Each structure stands twice: as C-alpha cells, then as structure tokens.
C-alpha cells in the first residue's frame, strides 16, 4: 500500500506519580530524596506503522494510555524512549478547548489556533469562512470564547482542525460533547477525509464507531499494544480485556477448552445461612473454537444452579438483563413466565433459554435472583454476574439485529405498479 504516515517505533512513556509533590525551591532542595512516587509506564514499547490514507481507531479502557499515545504523536509529550516519525502536516484535537485563549473572540482564536497548527495569516484567511460555516458559529464568532459552551468549543476546534487541510488528523474523545447533528457532520467530514486519502487516528469508546469507519484498530491495555489489525478482531480482543478488568465480575470465569464451552460463574457459599443459594450461573451458546463470544442471532441459555437446605414451596427465579449503557432490557422471572414450582432439598437448576439473541454487539450484564413468592423473601441475589459478550460480524450499527434483507430494482417503477 502507501507510504507510512506515522511510524511509532518502540515508544515507551514513563510517568512518576508523586504522592505529594513540592514545587518550591526549598522543598526541592530539602526533600529531594524523600518525596515518594509510584512508577508508571503509561506506554510500553508500542510499535506500529500507520499507512497513509488509513483510519485507525484506538480502543482501550480508561487509563490504558490512549491519550498518552496521541499526545506523543502530536508532540505534546515526548516519549521516554523510542521515537515517532510523522510524515506530513498534522492537526490534533486532543482536549476540549485546547489552545484557545478564553479572553479573545472566536475570530481571533481561529487565527491563533491556525498559527499553532503552523499556518500563515493568509492561509488562515483563505479558509476562515469555511471554518465559520462548518462550526455554525456565525452569531458567536465575535464573542469571547470564555462564554462558549463545551459543544461550541469542540465545534470551533474541529472546524479549524479539519479546514486547515492537514495530512493527518488526530482526534481524542472530544467529539462526544457535540450534539448529534454535529457529530454526524464530523463523521461525514471524516469520511470525506478518508476519500482524500488522509490519515486519521482517533480514540473512541464506541466499538460501533470503530467498526463503521476504521481500517484498522489498535487496542491498548495498560500501555501495551495487545492487538492491531482488522477492527472485528481487535474489538473482540478489546472486549476480552474488558472482561478481565479488575472490577468486572463477582465470580470467576472458568474458560475451559471444551468446544461447546460454557461459561461458568461459581460462587462461594455465603456465610449467612439461607435456605436456598445460587451455586453457579452457566451461560451456554454455540461456540466455534476461535472465539468465546455469543454471536448476535444465536441462541443462548442461562442456567442458574442452586442448592436448597430444605424443601421450599413456590420459589421464583428472576433474571434481569441490562444493556451496556445501563438501561434495563429485560426483567423477568419464572412467575412472569408462568412457571410455578417447588424446590426440594438438594441441588437443582433453572434454565432460561433465549431462542435467539437479537442484539448487536456489546457487553450485556445480567443479574439473577431467587426469592419466595409468598412474603417476597429474597433468598439470594447475584448482581451483574452474567456477562454476555456479544459479537456481531456485520457492519450495521445500532442496538438490534433485526432480520433484514434487501432487493434493488431499477427502471420505471410506475409501470410495474399498473
């Protein structure tokens, strides 16, 4: 393919996180040996070549070093070791309102910001109208930017960055504060950039966005590059790291090599005695050996195994499923499903079966509980123990994987109608 636009060569970035930091002369001299700090490698030996014309998405959980990498690419931070070679002009949108002087008007800031991106006055004058038009801030352009809203900052910042016609565009997560219409406009602009064979590097939390517009995706985890390549694959890896996250699950995920792998979440019996307790929760779904994900559209079953100390009449098992943003998708129970049963002493299981899982990819969480129908005693409740990792191979975005097909006709449609 083309030339390498950004070559990241073995880049590491080291930070010292001071517990308390003196910045005065005296403290520096007196406490020079006593100030305590933690070492942190925000980036460890990241190597990566970004070809000209590619769009790269960077995924990673909070604190994984995404912004640090972008700052190194832009040159705001210098790598502790390694180097980055950038071919061509670069415009970066790293943080909200970066580089704006709040006391100045929007107009003056356009010139200030433009010159920070390395443009001369006439060059800025040439694109000034485009910038204003794109940002839709005609009314406010002579106001001091300190009176701008967050969205207005981003509008102006993005408008400047894209209109100065850089070879490389670097965007951190700032676009999220723009309103929906502006975000769509930005996406259109990004597509336009792609058509012009410009290189784009952007950070996002949205796997959907990555799938839609990226050629390749980089996944960072604790400063290490753990995946780089085709978005679907990278997103899968990203999801895996999310699962491994320290505060992810309440149980342990046992990932056996069984091709018909079931995900088992086991619990230690609670210390306080309950007549019935949840032993484990097992997710099962068809699984090809290559990945451990539920494919959108495949069936899924959630089996809740229990242990009862004595016979209990009228037990209700409940299941709640929450989508990634926290909205409840489904809250159901055996009672609502019209199932009534009594529990005998010993072990047993209740299985919830979905014929097909119609949602697009994301991490869906579920909680299960056991309670009595009479008196509403909650015997056991496991919050967020079910992690349903859904993988969607298609390109569509949104929430639901509605069965859909298309047919295309050309020619005079009226004739057919008559």
């Amino acid at each position, binding site marked *: 393919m083309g030339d390498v636009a950004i070559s990241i060569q073995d880049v590491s970035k080291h930070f010292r996180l001071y517990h308390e930091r003196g910045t005065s002369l005296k403290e520096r001299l007196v406490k020079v040996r006593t100030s305590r700090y933690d070492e942190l490698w925000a980036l460890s030996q990241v190597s990566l070549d970004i070809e000209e014309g590619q769009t790269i998405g960077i995924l990673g959980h909070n604190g994984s070093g995404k912004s640090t990498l972008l700052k190194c690419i832009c040159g705001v931070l210098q790598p502790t070791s390694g180097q980055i070679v950038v071919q061509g*002009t670069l415009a970066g949108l790293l943080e909200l309102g970066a580089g704006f002087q709040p006391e*100045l008007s929007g107009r003056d800031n356009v010139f200030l910001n433009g010159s920070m991106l390395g443009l001369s006055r006439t060059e800025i004058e040439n694109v000034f109208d485009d910038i204003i038009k794109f940002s839709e801030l005609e009314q406010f352009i002579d106001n001091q930017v300190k009176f701008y809203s967050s969205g207005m900052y981003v509008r102006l910042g993005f408008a400047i960055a894209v209109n100065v016609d850089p070879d490389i565009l670097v965007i951190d997560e700032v676009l999220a504060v723009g309103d929906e219409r502006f975000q769509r406009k930005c996406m259109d602009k990004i597509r336009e950039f792609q058509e012009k064979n410009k290189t784009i590097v952007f950070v996002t939390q949205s796997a959907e966005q990555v799938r839609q517009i990226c050629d390749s995706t980089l996944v960072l985890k604790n400063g290490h590059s753990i995946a780089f390549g085709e978005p679907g694959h990278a997103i899968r890896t990203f999801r895996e790291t999310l699962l491994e996250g320290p505060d992810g699950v309440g149980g342990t995920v046992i990932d056996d090599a069984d091709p018909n792998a079931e995900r088992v979440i086991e619990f230690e019996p609670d210390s306080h005695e309950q007549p019935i307790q949840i032993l484990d929760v097992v997710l099962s779904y068809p699984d090809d050996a290559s990945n451990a994900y539920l494919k959108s559209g495949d069936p899924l079953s959630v089996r809740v195994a229990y242990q009862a100390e004595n016979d209990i009449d009228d037990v209700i098992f409940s299941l709640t499923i929450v989508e990634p943003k926290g909205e409840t998708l489904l809250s159901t129970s055996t009672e609502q499903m019209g199932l009534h049963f009594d529990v005998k002493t010993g072990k047993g299981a209740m299985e919830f079966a979905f014929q097909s899982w119609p949602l697009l990819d994301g991490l869906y969480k579920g909680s299960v509980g056991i309670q009595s129908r009479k008196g509403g005693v909650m015997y056991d409740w496991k919050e967020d123990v079910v992690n349903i990792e859904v993988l969607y191979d298609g390109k569509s975005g949104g929430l639901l994987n509605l069965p859909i097909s298309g047919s295309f006709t050309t020619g005079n449609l009226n004739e057919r109608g008559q």
Partner: protein
Amino acid sequence: MATDASASSSPASALGENVQAEARVKKTRVVSARMSIPQRLKNIWTNRELLRNLISTEIKVKYKGSALGLLWSMVSPAMTLIIYYVVFGVILKNSIPHFVIYLFSGLLLWNFFNLGVQSATGIIVARSGIVKKVAFPREILVLSCIGTAGVFLFFQSLVLIIFMVVLGVAPDWQLLPLWFLTLFIVALLASALGIALSAINVYMRDMAHLIEVILAAWFWACPIVYSFWTQLHARFHHAWESWLYFANPMAPLVLTSQRVIYNAPYVHLTSAGNKGEQILPPWRATTYISWNVELLVVSSLLLWIALVIFGRLEGNFAEEL
C-alpha cells in the same frame, strides 16, 4: 518538538521538478526525547506567525476593556521615571544636566529587560493549558514575552523622542545603529534568561519570586540612576572591582544606550570655576562597539546554553504542570 528532517525532502526532489508540482512535499517530524539546537531554532523560525499572534494576543488581552488601553502600559514606567527624577534629580540634586534624558535612556533598556525576563519566567506555568494540549515549540511562549516587552519598549521610545525634542537633546546620529544592536543584545540576553528560567520555574515554582528579588537588586548594579563615571569609577581602586562591575552585561549595555541617546560624554557644569566633568565614560566609540560585539557573542552563547537547558527540561513539561 517538531523536527524538519532534511532527509525527507530528498526522495521528492529526486523525482525532478516537473513532478514536484503535483505531489506536495511532505514534512517529516520526529518526536523523540532529543533534538538539536539548530533544529529547534528552525522550528521557532517556521512558527514566527504564531509568535506574532501570541504577542498581539497578549497585548489585546492585557488592555481589553480598559478605556485607555495601551496608555496603561505607560503608567508604571512613567511613575518610575518620575520618582527617580524627583528623588535623584530634585531632592538629591545630582549634577547631571538633562537628567530626565539620562535616566530615560538607561531606564528604557532596563524596563525592556526587566519586563521581558519577569514575564517570561512564569509563562510556561501560566500557559500550562496550552503547553499540555497543543504541540508547538514552547520557546515561542518565552519569545512572545520578550516580544511583548519589545512593544512596550517601542512606545516608551516614542515618549523618549518627545522628551528629546522638547529638551533639544540630539542623539549621536552616527552611533544610532549601535543603539539598535544594543537593543538586540538585550533581547537576546532576556530571551536566554527567560528561556532557562521559564523551564526551571516549572520544577521550582518560586523561581518567579526569586527572579523578582534578583532583578530588583540587579537594577542598582546598572548605572541608570547614577553616573558610573563620576560616582563609581573613581572609587574603584582595584581591577577586580571594575571587572566585577562589568561582569554584569547590562552595565555596558546601559552605558552604550546613554552614550548614544544622552550623547554627552563631557558636561560643562554651569557653576563658575568648574571645569568640564565627565558624566559618561570618556571612551572612544570603538570601545563601545567592541563591548557590544563581545556581548553579542556572549549573549548568543548564553541563548544556546539556555536552549540546551530548556530542551532537557521540556520533555516533562506536560506532566509536571
């Protein structure tokens, strides 16, 4: 931090000139922990538009919303001038004729240096917002302080010209170009000091206070409100005293400014029986010129050292701020 590597343009130029028109020559930038001084200077030069904008921003912001605008920038130097004039010229009755011009010709230079160094020292910390988020040669921020001080110097010079016309004092026209060289050297010195101190100030925040105190003392080490020749030179008995005095580069620079602007190496006092007294050193013009050439070299060297220091410290700016 942006480096223009000349190597990058060679493949493009190898294609021949006719091809160059369609393929825009891509700049190559290397982000790494080390960068050579010539590269840094080149980066500063390519960003001169930003420097200009920062200076005009500074001035706009400073005097936005004040009816008298830039006039305010003259209030403080005017006040200093008046106070020194009253104290030394009227109350202590020193024997320097046209004392206002004498005073002003040195004070002008000092105000430039003082304002430049003081505002530059704090600038990286003050503009941490930009430093943390936007990439550009950070030295530009320091230079914008010196530039802003330069703008004020320009306005003060206008006032000085008015004074000179009113009092009928003419500068030494032949040496006038030397005065501009002197200003340039002061700018170099202030830049060197500002660049080094602004970087150190990021790590030791009270540098800004310290430099304020140092500058206050430094002022008296320069022959601005007193005459070096009549009041000090006679008291120097050892060579090292004189050597020490002139270790301060601002001293000869102030003397040069006085020599050119005040332009009166010999002053004949009006009181009867007194023969001519020297207010300014009776050096020949070549002495002043060689002083300035020497200082040009020294201050360029200092600037170089300052850039090295800045380069070493700059890597951690974004995280220290």
